[in-house]
């Protein structure tokens, strides 16, 4: 294990986070706060409770997931795309580092940043609505698992993308709709039966449901199913990354 390299890349990536503090931490916090103001306070007061939980509190796990997903993807994709774009990737490719070390350091840094962000948003939410976390251990586990999984997805996008447009395309056209339709703002129980079934093909449903369960003990799908599905996405992402490095896809000519 080239521990010095892992540390160097991790530190380098985290330095980027602090350098872009405004964009990477403050702006998601502000936008999430706006959601709380609009949905939690303004509209939420007119919406009846869902499963005995006020609407404002109900959307907290979904909103954290929304930020976690988009930020994990954008951090990780940018982290690996930028060296490809500037050409500095030559150094990484010629360094005595294994693919596993590259993934651990880049994805680890992106996931760390997302988890910090998730916790900040959680704390922000606490200012607007009364929070309860029934299963704190599981909450952290879901948070970490989701951050890692979607940082891996981001890493894949960062390698696949051959322009800044594509880098934005997947988060914008796929991840945001999936999160909005994945039960961030509603329980999927309220959907017609057909749409409930269709929704189950949305992977984000399992993440939000499991995460919300860790807060309030209520879930759209069984928490074991949530955990299994999250692990499956993790495994799929890892398999794709293994293939990328094995073939040198978009990295080596």
């Amino acid at each position, binding site marked *: 294990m080239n521990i010095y*390299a892992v540390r160097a890349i991790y*530190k380098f990536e985290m330095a980027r986070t602090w350098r872009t503090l405004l964009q990477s931490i403050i702006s998601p916090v502000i936008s999430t706060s706006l959601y709380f103001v609009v949905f939690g306070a303004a509209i939420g007061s007119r919406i009846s409770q869902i499963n005995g939980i006020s609407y404002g509190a109900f959307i907290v796990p979904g909103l954290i997931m929304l930020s976690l997903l988009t930020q994990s993807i954008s951090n990780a994709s940018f982290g690996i795309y930028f060296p490809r774009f500037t050409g500095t990737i030559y150094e990484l490719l*010629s*360094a005595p580092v294994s693919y596993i070390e590259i993934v651990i350091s880049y994805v680890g840094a992106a996931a760390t940043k997302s988890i910090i962000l998730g916790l900040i948003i959680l704390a922000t939410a606490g200012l607007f609505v009364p929070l309860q976390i029934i299963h704190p251990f599981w909450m952290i586990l879901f948070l970490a698992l989701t951050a890692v999984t979607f940082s891996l997805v981001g890493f894949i996008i960062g390698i696949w993308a051959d322009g800044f447009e594509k880098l934005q395309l997947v988060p914008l056209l796929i991840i945001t709709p999936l999160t909005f339709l994945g039960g961030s703002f509603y329980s999927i129980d309220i959907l017609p039966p057909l749409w409930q079934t269709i929704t189950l093909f949305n992977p984000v449903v399992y993440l939000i449901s499991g995460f919300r369960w860790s807060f309030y003990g209520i879930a759209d799908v069984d928490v074991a199913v949530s955990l299994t599905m999250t692990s499956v996405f993790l495994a799929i992402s890892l398999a794709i990354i293994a293939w990328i490095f094995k073939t040198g896809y978009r990295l080596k*000519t």
Partner: protein
Amino acid sequence: MLNRSKQTPAHSTIVAFMQAIISVSNLSKIYASGFHALKGVNLEIRRGEIFALLGPNGAGKTTLINSICGIVNPTSGAISVDGHDIVRDYRAARSMIGLVPQELTTDAFESVWATVSFSRGLFGKPKNPGHIEKVLKVLSLWDKKDSRVMTLSGGMKRRLLIAKALSHEPQILFLDEPTAGVDVNLRRDMWQLVRSLKETGATIVLTTHYINEAEEMADRVAVINRGEIMLVENKVDLMRKLGKKQLTLQLSKPLHSVPAKLAAYQLELSSDGCSLTYTYDVQGERTGINALLEDLNMAGIMFSDLQTTESSLEDIFVSLLEDRQ
């Protein structure tokens, strides 16, 4: 015993010198576009030498270097660095190598100090601020250590790339066209650095378009064209083998044309008719100079001065490429 222990270091030095530190065998690279960049290249680079790779644009120099460094996946063939296969034993192989790429590819927002320290860590070396300081000072980047990379000039960026490559104390340094776009002073400093690196026992592989520099710097020269190594030669031998000398005579009185009697010498008359140039082979048994001077005397052509010049590596290079085409 005493005698033996005295012999051993010398013996091992000789063995180490003879050993190839990089050996490339049967290396081919066909890019996805179908471009055949390398065609069965065999090459051995010796420990501690300065090795120059010469060739026109698109000859395969960078592909060859990038294959050795692990940036390009070869289509076939094998490469070993100090006995380590670059695929199976990539860690050992790569940690010995520092690469200075041709393009000025640098980070933008990081400080000089951070980006050079990053390189050292990336290559698996523990922190050593003393070494980074030394490298930055040698490359005249010390007063820029806290500056952002994007604020550096082109020449400074070039030196920064060298600093990054030297940050992990490599035993082999690849310089891919290091003096492209670099001013005369910096170029001289750079070659001074290369020489001092060689003195520390490092092996240096460089590509350059400035053939006179390879001529000045290199111990051995390989000429590559269209993905094939055309020759690998000790520079001195190469100069001797392919080198031609020219004898230029400054005439006392201008000539209108070369007298027919002297046609066998294939003399070249300058446009102003004031000088005659005779080209001869250094390796030839007879240079023909004596006969020429006698014949000139017989023809009544007097000269006021004479000088000889050797052909440069550039001339050799050009004639070599022309021969093959």
